[in-house]
């Protein structure tokens, strides 16, 4: 082999600049061992490259040295064995399963949280349903109480209306009051007739009459020119009971008759009598 031609072929520079193929590099390394000129040529080109680089050196930022030295110290501390030359890469590949563990732990927590939420939600459903049932029962009770109150209010209102009407009748200046004291045998009984002289309406106040036996009813009579005229049946009314209209009468009387009344009074059953 012509070593001089070999050295001049450019293979030396290819090798030093790492542009040679592995085969070329292996061949050169072998020749370097055998021929001092080859080694010298490699060293000479390397030295001039080194000198060139040193001549054109650009100082890195001054603070960088500290960073670099710190990075090297970190390497020194992290260096586990010489057998593991790339701990950084191993660390990198370890971060992936590590992330997977974190992620699966995350989903475990999520699943646990979901179950807790579900149980909590079910418990709240039971709690709220019980509350709803209690409230519904109370509402029904209130509703029936309210209905009862409304009903009794209607009753009172009707009575009030009657009383109101009675007071109006009694206060009317055209109304005459005729007292009907109890006749012999019924001294304790008492009733009044209010007779409006302009409208001729007759109202009865059953102030103090004994309770009627079953099947019996009081009947008011107007005595017109000595003849009894039916003035109406006495019902259970709160204030004044409106009776039949009587245009003319000299007296009023009440007898106890069969329910529904009679055409003529049973004179032995007279309770009260009052002259106009």
């Amino acid at each position, binding site marked *: 082999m012509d070593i001089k031609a070999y050295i001049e072929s450019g293979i030396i520079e290819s090798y030093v600049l790492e*542009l040679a193929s592995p085969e070329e590099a292996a061949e050169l390394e072998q020749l370097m061992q055998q021929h001092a000129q080859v080694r010298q040529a490699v060293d000479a080109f390397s030295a001039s490259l080194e000198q060139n680089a040193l001549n054109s050196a650009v100082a890195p930022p001054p603070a960088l040295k500290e960073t670099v030295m710190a990075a090297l110290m970190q390497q020194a501390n992290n260096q586990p064995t010489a057998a593991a030359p790339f701990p950084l890469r191993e660390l990198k590949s370890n971060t992936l399963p590590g992330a997977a563990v974190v992620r699966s732990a995350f989903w475990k927590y999520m699943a646990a949280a979901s179950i807790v939420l579900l149980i909590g939600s079910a418990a709240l459903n039971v709690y709220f349903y019980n509350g709803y049932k209690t409230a519904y029962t109370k509402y029904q009770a209130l509703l029936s109480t309210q209905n009862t109150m409304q009903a009794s209010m209607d009753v009172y209102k009707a009575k009030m209306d009657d009383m109101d009407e009675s007071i109006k009748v009694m206060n009317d200046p055209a109304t005459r009051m005729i007292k009907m004291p109890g006749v012999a045998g019924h001294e304790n009984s008492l009733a009044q007739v209010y007779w409006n002289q302009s409208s001729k309406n007759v109202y009865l106040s059953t102030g103090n009459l004994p309770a009627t036996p079953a099947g019996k009813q009081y009947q008011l009579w107007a005595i017109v020119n000595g003849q009894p005229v039916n003035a109406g049946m006495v019902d259970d009314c709160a204030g004044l009971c409106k009776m039949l209209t009587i245009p003319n009468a000299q007296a009023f009387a009440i007898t106890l008759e069969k329910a529904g009344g009679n055409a003529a009074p049973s004179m032995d059953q007279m309770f009260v009598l009052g002259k106009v």
Partner: protein
Amino acid sequence: MPEIKKYSESELVMLLKQHEQHAFGYLYDSYSGALFSVILSIITDRELAGDVLQEVFVKIWRQIDSYDDSKGRLFTWMLNIARNASIDMVRSKGFQNSRQNRELTENVYDSSGTTQTNTDKIGLRKIVQTLKEEYKVLIELSYFQGFTQEEISRMLNIPLGTVKTRLRNALVQLRELVKT
């Protein structure tokens, strides 16, 4: 470098292989500027170049055991680490994105292209610029951009044998230029 050399190269290599901290301090003081210029001949961005320099020293620390002085000088070994690290950085996705952004900005605001020619003014790359065009492009693509000769053959549509021969001739010329 103006510093007085404290170690012979074989002493330094021995201390580096023992991961002596002060040996790395000395290595940094002696060679960080030269290695930084090698990185700057490939990477324009000084901040990124600083990152790469740090990476280079970490690699030296980790791989010093694999350095074999029978195969070449220490600096040559470090220079190739610096060149490979720089090319790796240029080829990384993050660098491509940042360069695209920068080029976009430059196209809009700065047409002088000063940052783009920076790498051509440093060290070996500056010398390469003085070679004739057909040599310059081969060293540019192979040494500074890291393409294989097969790739260059396809890119330039030149037979592989021609690429090989022409590159060898270019390197012989380069050697003469570097010597002076």
